[in-house]
Every structure is written in structure tokens, then in C-alpha cells.
């Protein structure tokens, strides 16, 4: 874990996360993230090459619901929480 975050990488991360950072935020976040990641480098001092990752804290079985038709939200209900709608559909920003 020798990679360190610099301003260029931070901006790339922010772009991936769909966040516009102000200069003030960049100035604040950059040293903080560097400090945090440096401290987390301590994970390099533990040997885990024979360990499996625990994506869940306790073993879980895959579950699937029965393949039956159930009641679901009406179109009207699904659109109830948005202001951006048209003709029974969500209206989004331009894609192209």
C-alpha cells in the first residue's frame, strides 16, 4: 500500500463519485485522506494471505423468493416522490 493520494488522484476519485469539489474542499480533504490512509497502512503488518474475505459477518445462505407474481407499486406510487416526471415516466437529464 505505498500509493499515496495526490490532488490529481483525489480529483479522479471525486469524478468517479460524482462529486464536484471546491478548492476549499480539496485543501481540506487531501491532507485528511492522506493521514487516514497512512494510518490504515498498518493493515500491511498482518498476514492474511491464507484468509478468505468476510463479505458478511456471519455465514449466509443464498436465498431466492418464490417465482410468483406479487403485488407491486403502481406507476403512480413509484413516481410519487419525484418532481421530474412526464407521461408516467421518470424524466432524467440528457444522456448524450
Amino acid at each position, binding site marked *: 500500500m505505498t500509493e499515496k493520494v495526490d490532488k490529481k488522484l483525489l480529483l479522479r476519485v471525486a469524478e468517479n*463519485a460524482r462529486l464536484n469539489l471546491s478548492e476549499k474542499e480539496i485543501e481540506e480533504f487531501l491532507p*485528511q485522506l492522506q493521514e487516514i490512509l497512512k494510518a490504515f497502512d498498518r493493515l500491511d503488518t498482518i498476514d492474511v494471505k491464507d484468509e*478468505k*474475505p*468476510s463479505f458478511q459477518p456471519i455465514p449466509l445462505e443464498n436465498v431466492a423468493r418464490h417465482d410468483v407474481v406479487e403485488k407491486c*407499486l403502481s406507476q403512480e406510487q413509484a413516481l410519487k416522490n419525484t418532481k421530474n416526471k412526464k407521461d408516467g415516466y*421518470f424524466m*432524467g437529464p*440528457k444522456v448524450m
Partner: protein
Amino acid sequence: MKKALELHEFVKEVKRGNISIAEHTEKILEEAEKSNSKFHHFNLIAKKSALQHAKEIDAGIKTGQHKGKLLGVPITVKDCICVKNFESRAGSKILTGYLPLFDATAVAKAKAEGAIIIGKTAQDEFGFGTFSNNVGVDFEKPLNPIDPKRCCGGSSGGSAGFTALTSLAHASLGQSTGGSIASPASFCGVAGLTPTYGRVSRYGLIDYANSLDKIGSLGKTTADAALLLEVISGYDMNDSTSLKAEAQDLANANPSNDLRIGVVKEFFKACEEKVQKECMKAIDKLEEEGATVEEISLPLNAKYGIAAYYLASTTEASTNLARFCGMRYGLHGKLEGNFNEYFSKIRSQGFGTEAKRRILLGTFARMSGFRDAYYLKAMKVRTKLIKEFRQAFENLDVLVNPTMPLVAPTFSEINKLSPLQQYAMDLCTVPANLAGLPHASVKAGEHNKLPVGLMITADHLQEKKMVQAAKAAEGLK
């Protein structure tokens, strides 16, 4: 703290017809409204619907319908848990105006037992905090009722704050990712119970980190919190991580004095001396009452817990929060620019500083080129940490340590801490959360009138032992 009827006594009186639910509900709503201008424990007070619900229950009792373990009990709900038609924002501006179309399973279960939801409580935005100082844009920080210069703890700060403040029968639904029930319970001097991961359905929870989030309960006493936890527990087909585990009678679990208790050395050493002293006094008394006490060591959890937790939780958070983009619900804007520009604009306005910080950290930890070194590594370390706990529980019933390394700090003290220093305050609570273990925080003592919490951790699905130990510790004088 003022003395209120314990919930089981309250419900008994309700069923006998000795308490008018409408009057009691009115009283607690009045208290909530009056105190909220100063303490900010609520993001929403649902006066109209609560009073309406109360009248319906009163009318039902008159016609002989008086079932329900929580009949007439006023319940507050952490903002991140959905309540049908109650604005549910998880403490974030980005969810402004969001009215869920359904109740979270935990809420539905509480309502089915006769509970009345009186409001949504303040929290760190999406649960991102230890002190409830990281509230969302335009939100007020909840203040500690014992000393308003101090924090309530976080992230379920409003839940713990109001539980401590109210003079009436009440309990609260909280939620913990890395200690967000235990921390505020400790700082406000109330009981907080966090179940095994999967014991309570997460359906209807606005998630922070899916593999870590647990809905739990807070009450003035362990008995109150245990009753609410018992009600909300159970398998739910709407949550694929829900456990098919046998239900436990928590409400009537007797305090146990013959438990084998492990005192976690490293967690103790990390705490302020006054905190250690109050917790040791409680543990010594438990030993006098018949418990077997031994010191144990969890060196890996102490050393690697914080790093593994923050990498795991922020990675999951960064994907969870990707859905908030101003299109289907919550904060909206004028549809301008292409979708990247629009989403970025809304997200940059809607998320607060700590949310942005954690999204950045988590996005980095799972980005191509860094994923193996950070996220995946943290998940493998997590396996080691779980194994260390498993070994400890081979010969022990519960583990104990101070919940927080200090008493509730003032906001000016918190402001001096860097984000990393704030994260480090979760040292004692993060490991049990990372391992999905049930844990309680109960008041062990006081230092200058400020409560000190004792944390009790049990093995997976051993909620009953957790409650028995918590009741024993709470009953010590």
C-alpha cells in the same frame, strides 16, 4: 434522569384502563415539542398522526381490543429507518421531501404490537459519526440533555438524547453500523441494545453499509430496550440477509449473576482513567455477586479493528450512496446539463462534509488498482478478527469493556479532533460491529454527573445472555 414507568408496567396499566393513551401521547408530544427548540433531538415530530393513532387505540381498548406488547407505548425512530408517509431523510439534505411508501419491517412490527410512532430522531448524516456532530446540511446537532454544551454521541444521538430527557414511558429504534447505538447510549446514560447482524430485518433501512448495519433499540432501562428488541426481531423474507434463528424471550430474561465474563485488556487500556475506574467498579461488583471474571486479550481487534472497519464501511457506503442523484426522490434540481453534470451538482449540494469525505475514501478503496490493497485486504483482516472473537467465546459468556474511551465531550473538544482522531474514538465499539456480534451499553457509573457506559458483548445469537448480563450490571448499586 427522571423516573418513568418501565414499559411492561406501563402496558399493564394501559390494559387495566388506568392510563389514557391519548393523554399520555399528548403529554410526550408536548415534551418533545418544548424540548426540541433547545435540544434538537427530532428531525420530525408527528403530532397529528400520533394523536390520531392514540385515539384509535383508546377506542379499541374500550371495545375490548387490548392486545400488544407495546400497547400505547410512544416510540421514536431514527431518521434513517423508513416510516410510511413520514419524511425520512437519514439526517441528509439529499433526501429532502422523501416520503416512504411503506414502513420498515422493524417499524411495522412495533406498530403491530400497539406502538405509536411520535417522530424521527436526529443523527449524523447517514450514520457517519461518533458524536452526532456530522449532521447534514441545514440540520441542527442534537444536544446532550445532561449538559447541552456536550454531544449526545452518535450516530443515533437524537434517540439516546430524547430517551434520557423524557420523563415518560418511551423507547427508541436506533441503528448501528460501527457503534451508533452503544456510543450515544453511553454518553446519555441510557441502555442501548444492538442485535446480531441479521437478527432484525434491515428492510426499510436507509443503509450506510449493508454488511454492518443493524437496527436495535434504546430505552431508559435494559428491560425497556429488550422488550422493543424482542418485538422487532425475526426472519423477514424482504431482507436476504435476515436470519432464520429461533426467537428468544428477551423481555423476561432474568439478570444473571453466574456468567463467565472476559475483561478486554486492550480496550480498557485505551480509555481515560476515570472511565476505566467506573467500569472496573461495576465489574468488581458483578464478581462479588457471583460472576467469574478474567482478563482477556484481543490484540488483533485492538490493532486492526478501526482500519478494517473504516475501509469496509466507507467502501459499502460509497456504493450505497450512489443512488442519491436527484431523480427519483429527495432533493431535486432543474434538469440542466448532461446526466453527469446534473447528478454531480445535486450530490455536491445535498451531501455534507463528512458524507463527502467517506464517499471519497470508499470510492478510492474500491477503485481499480486499489481494491485489492484496501477493500479486499480489510475483508480478509475481518475474517481474522472474527476468529479472534470466536476463540474468546469458547470459554466465556460475555466480554466487557468501557463503551467509549471518554465521557461525552463538548462540541469545542470535538472540533479540535481531526477526522482520523474522531474515527479512533470507536476503538471499543467497532470490533463487535465488524464481527456482527450482539452488544449492549448500560450505565456503569458517573464522573462529574456525566454517565460512563459499560459495553457487554455476547457471541452470535446470544442476545439473551447479553440482556441477562446487562440487567445484572444495571442493577448494581
